[in-house]
């Protein structure tokens, strides 16, 4: 994989050199900042291909502002400091008009200072923990109120869950999300003894004790559910152990925020049957736009078995928004595009529209799906209309007074009580 990416980058560098002479004025450069090697390559390579597919399609339609789009792909290799270096390279050396990239929160935090210093524009496509709003980033993935909170609401109202296990991998996204969820559950009248929060290390595989504890916690006579922010690999042995200890989705359902079609494609889905996932997109949702997208993807990637997933749709939306903004601003200048973005709308793949909000998040529909035997999801609940993304959670004491508004306030963290903007790097 690594050699391939080096080869590709080589090709692109050669291409850039070439175009400098011939057609420098006729292309718009689009940066793609996704890991093509290392641990995150599994997920991020797909997103790189998605953007290449979108660029390809746009060029076939005649490009943008009469110019061809030219992708500049770099490989930050799942190495967080390297993300910042590669971002600087894209912005300062290649002078790209826009960057689509990052997956983990730590990689986003790593490139943030670079984008703010060089005044770049980043479209970030993954669900994340919120508590951030940068002038230079458009967040096309879900904030906690577009994924975690609706999922908890669903379990509380539709399934009648009274007792909660918040099970996560020990890092920033689960810890922040669980902090928000805990505050939310307290607000809804759930007693502290009915909430159990636990963290396990990355790649954890010996789930016996944890699952036995969940079983015990869940046998107190009240309907119990597990809200899982368990990351990646550790999910497989977790669900296997649930199956072995005979905890079915009917007894104690597990709702996951990081398990999607791509993750399920490498698994034996038998033990997962009926467990839940909350996303803003499912491949199984049957709309003409989604069908066309899946077909386009299969043709582009030359493999009819490849799945589509939520972050791919986020990139689809992000790319279309950027194109619209450039067309509206009649320029690729970051300031002009950023001014054009808020209020722009583009259709989702699953129906409805995504609208850019002043806080640089977008509106998204929320879906809850049950895992089916074929590794796809069966949608059991959808939000009424789109939910606007909230950058600063209303349920955390530190952040409920903070507001992000890049249109009127021109600030990512305006404190409504002290009436002060504490600058980009508010903590």
């Amino acid at each position, binding site marked *: 994989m690594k050699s391939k990416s080096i080869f590709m980058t080589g090709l692109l560098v050669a291409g850039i050199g070439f175009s400098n002479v011939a057609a420098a004025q006729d292309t718009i450069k689009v940066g793609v900042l996704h890991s093509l090697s290392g641990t995150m390559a599994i997920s991020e390579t797909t997103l790189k291909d998605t953007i290449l597919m979108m660029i390809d399609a746009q060029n076939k339609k005649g490009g943008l502002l009469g110019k061809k789009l030219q992708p500049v792909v770099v490989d930050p290799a799942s190495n967080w400091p390297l993300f910042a270096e590669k971002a600087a390279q894209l912005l300062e050396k290649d002078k790209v008009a826009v960057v689509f990239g990052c997956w983990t929160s730590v990689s986003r935090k790593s490139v943030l200072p670079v984008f703010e210093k060089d005044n770049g524009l980043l479209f970030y496509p993954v669900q994340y923990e919120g508590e951030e709003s940068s002038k230079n980033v458009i967040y096309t993935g879900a904030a906690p109120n577009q994924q975690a909170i609706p999922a908890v609401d669903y379990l509380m109202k539709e399934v009648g869950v009274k007792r909660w296990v918040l099970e996560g991998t020990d890092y920033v996204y689960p810890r922040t999300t669980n902090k928000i969820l805990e505050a939310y559950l307290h607000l809804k009248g759930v007693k502290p003894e009915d909430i159990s929060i636990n*963290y396990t*290390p990355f790649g954890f595989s*010996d789930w016996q004790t944890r699952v036995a504890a969940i079983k015990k916690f869940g046998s107190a006579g009240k309907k119990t559910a597990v809200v899982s922010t368990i990351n990646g690999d550790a999910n497989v042995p977790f669900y296997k152990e649930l199956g072995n200890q005979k905890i079915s989705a009917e007894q104690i359902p597990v709702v996951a925020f990081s398990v999607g079609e791509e993750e399920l494609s490498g698994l034996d889905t038998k033990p997962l049957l*009926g467990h839940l996932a909350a996303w803003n997109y499912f491949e199984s949702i049957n709309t003409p736009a989604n069908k066309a997208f899946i077909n386009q993807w299969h043709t582009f990637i030359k493999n009819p078995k490849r799945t589509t997933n939520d972050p791919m749709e986020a990139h689809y939306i992000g790319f279309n928004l950027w194109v619209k903004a450039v067309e509206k601003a009649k320029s690729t200048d970051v300031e002009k595009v950023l001014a054009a973005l808020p209020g722009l709308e583009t259709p989702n793949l699953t129906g409805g529209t995504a609208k850019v909000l002043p806080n640089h998040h977008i509106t998204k529909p929320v879906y809850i799906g049950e895992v*089916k*035997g074929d590794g796809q999801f069966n949608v059991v609940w959808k939000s009424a209309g789109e939910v606007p993304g909230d950058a600063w959670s209303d349920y955390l004491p530190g952040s409920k007074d903070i507001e992000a508004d890049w249109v009127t306030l021109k600030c990512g963290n305006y404190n409504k009580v002290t009436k002060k903007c504490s600058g980009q790097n508010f903590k």
Partner: protein
Amino acid sequence: MKQPGSGGRWLRVLLPALWSIGHVYAQAPGDTAFLSTLGELREATYSDKAAIAERLSQTGHRSVRAVLTALMEDRLSYRNSDQKIFIVQTADEDPARLIDPLTLKSAGSAPADSLTKIGTNNSLRHTLRTVVAHFSLSSPDAAVRLEAVRDMLQSLDEPTLDLLRKRLPVETNGAVKREIQTGLALATLDGTDAKARLEAVATLSRRVSQDVRNRLALLLDKSPDGSFTEPDEKVRRAAAAAVASIDEWRGFYSGIETLFFGLSLGSVLVLIAFGLAITFGVMGVINMAHGELMMLGAYTTYVVQMIMPGHIGLSILVAIPAAFVVAGLVGVAMERTIIQHLYGRPLETLLATFGVSLVLQQAVRSIFSAQNRSVITPEWMSGSLQLNGALAITYNRLYTVIFTLIVFAILLVVLKRTRIGLDIRAVSQNRAMAKAMGIRTEWVDAMTFGLGSGIAGVAGVALSQLTNVGPNLGQSYIIDSFLVVVFGGVGNLWGALIGGMSMGITNKLLEPYAGAVLAKILVLVGLILFIQTRPRGLFPQAGRAGEDK
């Protein structure tokens, strides 16, 4: 868990139909009606499907149980060409073996993509399970009956109780009888007769399940107005004693459970350390590619499953010798080409084998892709052995413990009782003397390394059932295996066994209090302190070889 509303109403409608089954069996009532109702399942929404299932069960047709069970297990499909509904023998097989829903006889087979599955969701499956449980109560298989009664205990209502009361006198199996008695006693607690309630409490006090305990504890609760929910003082006292006794037993069983968790974690540690105990312990080679040899074993399991898709249960047993051979051959090749030139230079060996580990990882990435591979767990290894209401042991862990002990016994026999074992020990104790006695030390080195590597491969087969099979599998276990070997005492199989087991048990004893992250750290800190005071581990090797190292 109780769903008195819809489930109860349904059952009341259903039961007369159930009773009629036996009597009108021969008439096979309304095949056409049954089929047309069945056909509606194709287009229905989930709540409609529940209603259709209800109507199906009312037909009293002899196939109802088979069809509803199939629907619950995702094995009900229709053929795209003619929309005809079939039961599929095994879920997700290709080609699927079809069963006719009317006659329940084989109806040939069809490729999986020519069929469309009739989907279910959690609430539909939950309802189906309750219905199917009623049918299963007359199953000839005691295990099925036991499962059925346990399902019925989740939602006890009058029709269900009726069914249980009628079953009790004819039930022959002791365990099933006991569960039925539990159910009836639980229901009696809601009754008005204080004496009957007292008897029920006495019956329930000998159970250990959490549900029973919760129900008994409810008797001790006070209503908002300050009066007890249970009016009779004697019943209350009996219930309090029963809850205390159940809690005591549950505490005891949870201790046993923790011990078993520790043993099973320990046996994984031991298994991954055995190979290293030979290559590192006996030969003194620091083999950083040990983890990748385990990874090869895990991938061998995957390949074997690919080769024999119809025999998943058997594939694991075939994979064990296959993994031994694959990893063993790679080990011998490593020894012959690289390690033999580096004996006595531990630092270079470490670097060279680390390089080999990277090469092996990349090779696997190139051949199988970076994505994890899905190794299917065979039927006989999933699920758990329910010993009583409080204690269940998962099969995959149980087999891992047994498997580790078998591997240990075989290794002991090979090292102590065979010619090659004698040679291995001779070379490791005094190479020059062994050579002088006519032992081909180079050949023995290759065989020893091959044996250690092969055992690593076998450990990989076990790991494929417990964790993810991917290129990084080895990396996550290499440190643990070195720790066990160093802790147990280098060059000692018993040391690896005792060391691994005690690490596993300590970890699991700490985990409920400290959490998984802290428990692991505490074990590591303990290990460091131990090595400080006893640098040669639990069982230091005696004699000359021990002193050389």
